[in-house]
């Protein structure tokens, strides 16, 4: 894959974006339940969540493609909630391929400039620069059907950026691509975004994608932002069981909370300072925080998966529950082998038992 050239289009000024108490209803169903979100100039925020959590609705509300029922949408302090989409000065890349089929790549990129009545010479120069920025200058005369999916999305990115918008909105732009192109394109998007310093909102349901590219990730659930923070914060200190379960891989283990400590199969682990009454709980422990040990909780190996630089092994405990252990590839536990496991770190989250 060709690496991108240094962007030559003039960097836009990153804008501050604020969603304040944004509410959106669809025929009795509340899609957004009072979203509050502030994005700093030049920041890259990912909205992450399962299908139907409201992340795309939030993005479309910011773009102006959806009218909000309540709340304010501020771009650089200006409330744009009632401003139509074509006057919001935003760039958008869609999930489905959205290049205009009757136009070449260059004509597609020129479109936004044409709408802004930019002169022909300047328009063509800027469009060519934008295509060069995404590494597709040699495809300027090609139509959408002559481009691969990844190339189409790159042209769409160039088209969204060429007008120097205040905000860039990415609505799952990688979801229709195959795995390898996905990773390449997401890195390229991040590189261009960093170089241009454009405020960006990226919607995805792929946690790996969100954690890899975003400065901060907002995890959404049922129309609300459950937690917002850096990828590290979300992974190491999820505030709720939902976030712990949704972000990264977790062992969900039934345990007892006793005097502020979590007790699992007799093993006592310090908790995260949960102020919860003693009693049955569910603890979320990362596979890398579980280790094989000479002594510990007795278990039987069920199976092991080689993952390149590491290995994950599933073990069955005495009560028939399963536990995932992440360890070095040099260790080869055989199915049926009797082992002992212990917890190397405290749970990332503790929640009530259902």
């Amino acid at each position, binding site marked *: 894959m060709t690496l991108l050239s240094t962007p030559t289009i003039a960097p836009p000024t990153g804008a501050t974006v604020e969603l304040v108490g944004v509410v959106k209803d669809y025929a009795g169903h509340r899609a957004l339940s009072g979203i509050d979100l502030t994005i700093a100039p030049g920041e890259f925020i990912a909205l992450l969540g399962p*299908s139907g959590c409201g992340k795309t609705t939030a993005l479309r509300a910011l*773009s102006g*493609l959806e009218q909000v029922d309540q709340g304010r949408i501020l771009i650089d302090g200006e409330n744009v909630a009632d401003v*139509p*989409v*074509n*006057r919001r000065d*935003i*760039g*958008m890349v*869609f999930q*489905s391929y*959205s290049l*205009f*089929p*009757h*136009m070449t790549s260059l004509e597609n990129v020129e*479109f*936004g400039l044409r*709408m*802004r009545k930019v002169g022909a010479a300047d328009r063509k120069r800027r469009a060519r620069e934008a295509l060069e920025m995404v590494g597709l200058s040699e495809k300027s005369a090609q*139509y959408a*059907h*002559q*481009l691969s999916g990844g190339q189409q999305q790159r042209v769409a990115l160039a*088209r*969204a950026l060429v*007008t120097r918008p205040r905000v860039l*909105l990415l609505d*799952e732009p*990688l*979801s*229709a*691509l*195959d*795995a390898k192109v*996905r990773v390449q394109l997401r890195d390229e998007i991040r590189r261009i975004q960093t170089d241009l310093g454009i405020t960006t909102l990226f919607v*995805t*349901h*792929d*946690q*790996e*994608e969100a954690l890899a590219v975003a400065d901060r990730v907002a995890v959404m659930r049922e129309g609300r932002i459950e937690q917002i923070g850096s990828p590290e914060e979300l992974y190491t200190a999820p505030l709720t069981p939902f976030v712990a*379960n*949704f*972000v*990264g*891989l*977790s*062992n*969900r*283990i*039934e345990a007892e909370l006793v005097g502020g400590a979590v007790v*699992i199969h007799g093993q006592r682990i310090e908790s995260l300072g949960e102020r919860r009454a003693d009693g049955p709980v569910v603890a979320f422990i990362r596979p890398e925080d579980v280790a094989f040990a000479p002594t510990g909780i007795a278990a039987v190996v069920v199976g092991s998966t080689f993952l390149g630089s590491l290995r994950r092994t599933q073990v069955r*405990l005495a*009560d028939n*529950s*399963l*536990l*995932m252990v992440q360890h070095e590839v040099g260790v080869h536990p055989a199915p049926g082998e009797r082992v002992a496991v212990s917890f190397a770190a405290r749970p990332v989250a503790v929640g009530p038992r259902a």
Partner: protein
Amino acid sequence: MMVSAGTLPGRDKTSRVSNATRVGAEPSRTARAVILGVVGVVFAIPIVGMIIFTFRDGLTGTYTLDHWTGLFAPDAARTYRNLFTAIGNSLTLAAVTVAIVLVLLLPTMLLVHLQFPRLRRVLEFICIIPITVPAVVLVVGLAPVYSIVVRTFGGSIWTLAFAYGITVLPFAYRAIQSNLESVDVITLSEAARSLGANWFSVTWRVLLPNLRRGVLAASFISVAVVLGEFTIASLLNRVNLQTALLQVSQSDPYVAVIFSLLALAFAFVLLLLIGRFGSTGRDRSPSA
């Protein structure tokens, strides 16, 4: 205790897209040739019969060019004046009917598709109704309406296009709808709007170029339907090509058949034009 593994849900999307289900096998080259041949013969026999008929001399049974050359005789304009007037009427009606389709039906379909998708079924039902109503029944309903139309707009022939605008609805609707379904007009219009386009630019610069095939097909099919329409014009006492042909056929059946053939040829040319001009740059460009 249990393990919950975080999944990567986007991953299986690509495979879903690429694994399109194929229903039935494609017919062989021979089967295609046979089907095409049989259908072609069914269509060709009456047309060839008409062509042969126009060269027949009714009295001697020999072949002659007189029926065709007679159309260019010095007194032909006078002899067939009513027929030429009827052709002019039909062309006027075709133009007004196409205008009705483009000005009323097309914007309505776009609006419903983009803004009121729940009304799609209702619109489809309304547009299909005329095909289920026999023309005679339609005229019975239209007769009192036309008494008002005549009072309002006068008795000009073009007012018949209001009725034709209804009769062509099923054909025009299907032509445009099939094109609408093949193009993701919602995403295209949203992309255009996000790039600063107003609704006029969205429609003119983005949607219509991608709906050209459907719009042309709707227009040309409407023209073909109007040129072939007889019942409504006859029962409402208007003169169009078909009513004039019937009148002429009683005195000169050869000329009636010649003009029928010319009308058919005109319709064929229109269909060819759909294929020629209905394709976008995308279709004409060489594959990468």
